[in-house]
């Protein structure tokens, strides 16, 4: 993929979006039969599937915690999900993403209710196009609700990038690859509002003021995604109620 000369022309991005506009999102709840909770999610060209198993007995037994459930999160990319075939299995990037995502969910799942058990969250990236970790967190949140896991709220995640000196919401591949900065963030949404930050990473170069603005932009995007997560969940449960 060659580097585009400019990222923003006449106030529009390469894919025609405004700087504060999300890519199209599609969410399907209860996508898998075997998992206790699941979700399929599209965010632009990202295609991800999340599954939740548990609370179930934690194995191996030595990892059991008598005071709370153990949360495990596995972010995994399919070998065909990216342009150049990815070697299957965890690489350094996947391990880091899994770690910070796990910690974000640990902060919101009421794990004290399930001592000695494990809650497993598996996310598979079938196609990646920038922001796959945020898409996975959004899908995992919905899957956790689907599995009936008690949480303080749900996590909603989005990234903000800087291209041509402009902050853009939910960057696509070109903006992510050649941009000046990238900041994935996940918020705890509670009572329909943004409560706090559960995940925050940044690499690139931003001033203090730009970070403040980036968070503001991320909050706007998160509110929109949250509404879609909510609708998807409601749709499932309303349908079930009618049956």
């Amino acid at each position: 993929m060659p580097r585009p000369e400019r990222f923003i022309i006449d106030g529009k991005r390469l894919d025609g979006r405004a700087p504060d506009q999300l890519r199209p999102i599609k969410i399907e709840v209860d996508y898998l039969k075997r998992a206790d909770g699941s979700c399929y999610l599209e965010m632009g060209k990202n295609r991800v599937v999340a599954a939740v198993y548990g609370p179930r007995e934690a194995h191996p037994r030595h990892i059991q915690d008598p005071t709370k459930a153990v949360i495990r999160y596995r972010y995994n990319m399919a070998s065909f999900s990216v342009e150049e075939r990815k070697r299957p299995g965890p690489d350094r990037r996947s391990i880091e993403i899994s770690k910070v995502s796990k910690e974000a969910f640990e902060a919101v799942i009421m794990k004290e209710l399930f001592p000695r058990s494990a809650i497993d969250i598996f996310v598979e990236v079938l196609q990646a196009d920038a922001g796959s970790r945020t898409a996975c967190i959004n899908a995992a949140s919905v899957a956790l609700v689907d599995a009936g896991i008690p949480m303080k709220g749900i996590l909603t995640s989005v990234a903000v990038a800087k291209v041509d000196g402009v902050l853009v919401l939910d960057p696509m591949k070109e903006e992510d690859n050649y941009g000046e900065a990238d900041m994935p963030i996940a918020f705890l949404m509670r009572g329909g509002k943004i409560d706090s930050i559960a995940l925050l990473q940044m690499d690139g170069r931003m001033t203090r003021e730009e970070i403040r603005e980036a968070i503001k932009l991320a909050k706007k995007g998160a509110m929109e995604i949250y509404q879609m997560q909510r609708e998807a969940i409601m749709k499932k449960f309303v349908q079930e109620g009618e049956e």
Partner: protein
Amino acid sequence: MTEDILSEIKKDYVLSKLRDGERIDGRKFDEFRKLEIKTGIISKAEGSAYVKLGNTQVVVGVKMQPGEPFPDVPDRGVIIVNAELVPLASPTFEPGPPDENSIELARVIDRGIRESEAVDLSKLCIEVGKKVWLTFIDIHALDDDGNLLDASAIASICALMNTIVPASRFGLGEDFCLPVNDIPVSVTSLIIGNKFLVDPTRDEMSVGERTITITVDRNDNIVAIQKSGDYLLSESLLEEIMDTSIRVSKKIREEILRQCSKACQ
């Protein structure tokens, strides 16, 4: 089990001190521990540094060799950061391939160096698309008494600052100094409720491994952020931490410049 009880006692101590507005070692909330830097300690390496931050000790070695560039940047040198949290450095470190903690540490340091453009990678191209200099930054922990990340980041940039590119060894002309243009400084804070402690010790970490690392370049730009740990962070606290980190980073950078001699330049 003794570890558990001890850590509970330490935790209570840290928290009770904190209620009085104090840290267990008497430092201010935004104060780093004493920093000691020695460079050029490994003559077999192209660049090296030893850093002692309080009682945390780490050695970083830089090795360089010609190799293939990344296809998307055919005219740039390559930096690879790797961390070995060897079992000698802590009772909790285990031998074997890098775990999630050492991977995270290496990747956060990598981002600081990369995004601040500390190393001028355009000067490390030998033949476009074919051959560039590969720069391996290897972090070797010796003693983890807390905040291994910042100690390793300081050691990494100091090692780079006295790295000599071994061109003559590979028949590629004369040796030259690695061009280093910036000194990124990472500042890690431990979050305890709505307070934060800069440069936490291992004892302070007994309250919970909840940290945030803010890496700042010499122009006060933020070049990397990493929230680490299972906690929720308020926006107002984040704002406060960023301001403090920018302020503290300047002091550390001065200290690096004072102690870290460059090999040439």
